[in-house]
């Protein structure tokens, strides 16, 4: 990131129209190393901040949920995409983060356990507790590979589900759940409507800020030595060990960081969805995250974000389909060949397959193709 601010001379002396000519090391490894990238990212961020004023509240809540899931998807991408450790247990860490946030922020006099602490405490605490859990789980990962690891993490999800279901004083029990708390920052509520911004707008902006704060370090991690160690562990772990990359340390770090992100995601989700129910942190949620990573693009941060937004917005799109396509029925009582609920489930499965077969790099791969086409235009062949 410092390269953005320093070394203006290095970049300034680049001839125009030659953005990929790097004349200094810092501009080479910079996060946003071409003017186009800088302008593009700025535009996207500006558009994202401007969105709340153009779009209705319901969509904002949906988008906010998508942003929160993006944080989780980034976490999963770190451990599965970058470090190659297949983890089906992401839902467990998300749940852990959500309940840590719930307990720390909950009403001390309420029906369930709560401590009434402010957001600056519970948001990072959610991440830290989940990260600590990841740290505990990691030694298992160092011993296992491939499917064995995947099934063990799956077992973690089931165990976690069981604990959440049984620990009613914290979670409220299955089918009952626990109410959300009002998140406040310096006394201003982040979820209730106020004079200037409505509740949904605030929530969306909050999620956006947290996402940016989470995505930039992740991106930096990916291009740092740690990130390269992850890639080495993913590609050829025995060879990596031979050249001196500590496998144990890399795997430990990957799980811990990924769980930290999952915890933050859980805490964010908890503020957005208003009620949290213990049965939500199940295998299906884990598979959703895996789908986000795969559809978006493994081992890319922007891919995680794209994948998360895509998967979160998918139900909204399939709800509109019956209007355009005659043989898809609306809701569950509508007739037709398929109802839109079933269509969504099938699309979900089919999309995963389609992306894996046709574009293994996911939505990010699609973006790369588009970008490369236009880079070479009009000589794009």
């Amino acid at each position, binding site marked *: 990131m410092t390269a953005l601010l320093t070394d203006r001379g290095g970049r300034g002396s680049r001839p125009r129209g030659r953005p990929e000519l790097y004349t200094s090391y810092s501009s080479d490894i910079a996060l946003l190393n071409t003017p186009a990238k800088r302008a593009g990212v700025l535009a996207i961020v500006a558009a994202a901040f401007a969105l709340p004023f153009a779009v209705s509240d319901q969509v904002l809540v949906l988008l906010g949920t998508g942003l929160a899931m993006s944080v989780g998807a980034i976490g999963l991408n770190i451990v599965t995409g970058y470090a190659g450790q297949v983890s089906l247990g992401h839902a467990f860490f998300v749940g852990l983060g959500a309940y840590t946030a719930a307990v720390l922020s909950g009403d001390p006099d309420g029906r369930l356990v709560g401590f009434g602490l402010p957001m600056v405490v519970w948001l990072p605490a959610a991440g830290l507790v989940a990260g600590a859990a990841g740290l505990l789980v990691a030694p298992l990962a160092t011993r*296992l590979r491939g499917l*064995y690891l995947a099934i*063990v993490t799956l*077992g973690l999800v089931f165990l976690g589900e069981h604990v959440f*279901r*049984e620990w009613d004083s914290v979670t409220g029990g299955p089918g009952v759940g626990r109410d959300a708390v009002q998140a406040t920052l310096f006394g201003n509520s982040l979820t209730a409507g106020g004079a200037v911004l409505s509740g949904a707008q605030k929530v969306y902006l909050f999620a956006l800020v947290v996402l940016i704060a989470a995505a930039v370090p992740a991106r930096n991690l990916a291009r740092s030595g740690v990130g390269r160690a992850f890639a080495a562990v993913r590609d050829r772990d025995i060879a990596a060990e031979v050249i001196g990359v500590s496998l144990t340390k890399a795997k430990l770090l990957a799980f811990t960081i990924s769980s930290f992100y999952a915890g933050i995601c859980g805490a964010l989700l908890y503020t957005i969805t208003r009620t949290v129910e213990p049965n939500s942190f199940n295998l299906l949620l884990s*598979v959703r995250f895996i789908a986000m990573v795969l559809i978006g693009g493994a081992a890319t941060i922007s891919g995680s974000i794209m994948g998360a937004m895509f998967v979160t917005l998918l139900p909204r799109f399939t709800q509109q389909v019956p209007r355009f396509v005659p043989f898809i029925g609306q809701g569950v009582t509508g007739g037709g060949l398929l109802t839109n609920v079933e269509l969504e489930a099938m699309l979900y499965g089919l999309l*995963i397959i389609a992306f*894996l*077969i046709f574009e293994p790099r996911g939505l990010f791969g699609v973006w790369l193709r588009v970008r490369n086409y236009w880079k070479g235009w009009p000589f794009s062949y």
Partner: protein
Amino acid sequence: MTRFGQSLIQGLGNGSIYALLALGFVIIYKSTLVISFAQPALMVAGATMVVFLTGSFGLPFFAAVPVAMLLTALLGLIVERSALRPMVGKPVFVVAIITIGVDITIRVVVNRFLGNTIRNFTSPWGLDTLRVGDVFVQQRFLAMMLTTAVVVAALFAFFKYSRTGLAMRATAFDQETALAQGISVGMVFALSWAIAGALAALAGTFVGTGGSIDQQTWIIALKALPAIIIGGLDSVGGAVIGGLVVGVIEALVGTYQPTAAPWLGNNFAVVSPYVVLLIVLLLRPYGLFGTPEVERV
């Protein structure tokens, strides 16, 4: 003592369901090196077929089950040809995720047929019990155990003594060499999926006896996953033993845990296989009978 006996029988009965599912999985893995998460869908598909064959088509139970097994084997074949044949050569992880996608798709279609109501089929045993001394033994558990034993024995005999079984074993050992020897590896792939489909259908039938089939039944198949891992990914015998172990542990914990250790919570029996899984893997990272992976760098 009677409760122990009852739990043991129940455990072995349920264990045979998991054993059949695990067996199908391991057969696919050994021949094609593909990790298939589509077993739950095949199981529910098979069970639904039995429901419709005995219900709308009016076939007797003992005729409906083999027909359902054949049809599900066909389904497995179709899945293999359409979704997995194009994926030969892709990384293992990718193919595993594709099987998840296949699983979701098949389940959506099957749920359409199941609808929202409870579906029953009339099995010859229902919930009838046999009294052996003080122990109430449910007849269906005995039937399950017997059928599984017969099927497993038949499979072992098939693998050991028939030409096709030999071909499959050869393919599992080394695909390239088998190809070089003139074995049709494609046929082996297709056959392994077909066998897995048939086994899943049988498991689904067992699930349906004494109970009902609805849209949530597929979750039962997830218990086969610890069975596979405990037994070892590439061990056929391990799969069977793993399945039985999981069933027995689940039943015993279900009977004794509420009184012996209530602090573990209600229904701890559902997650107890995973605890056992963790313990087994800590001691033997490749399962009880699995072969450790040897990788060339």
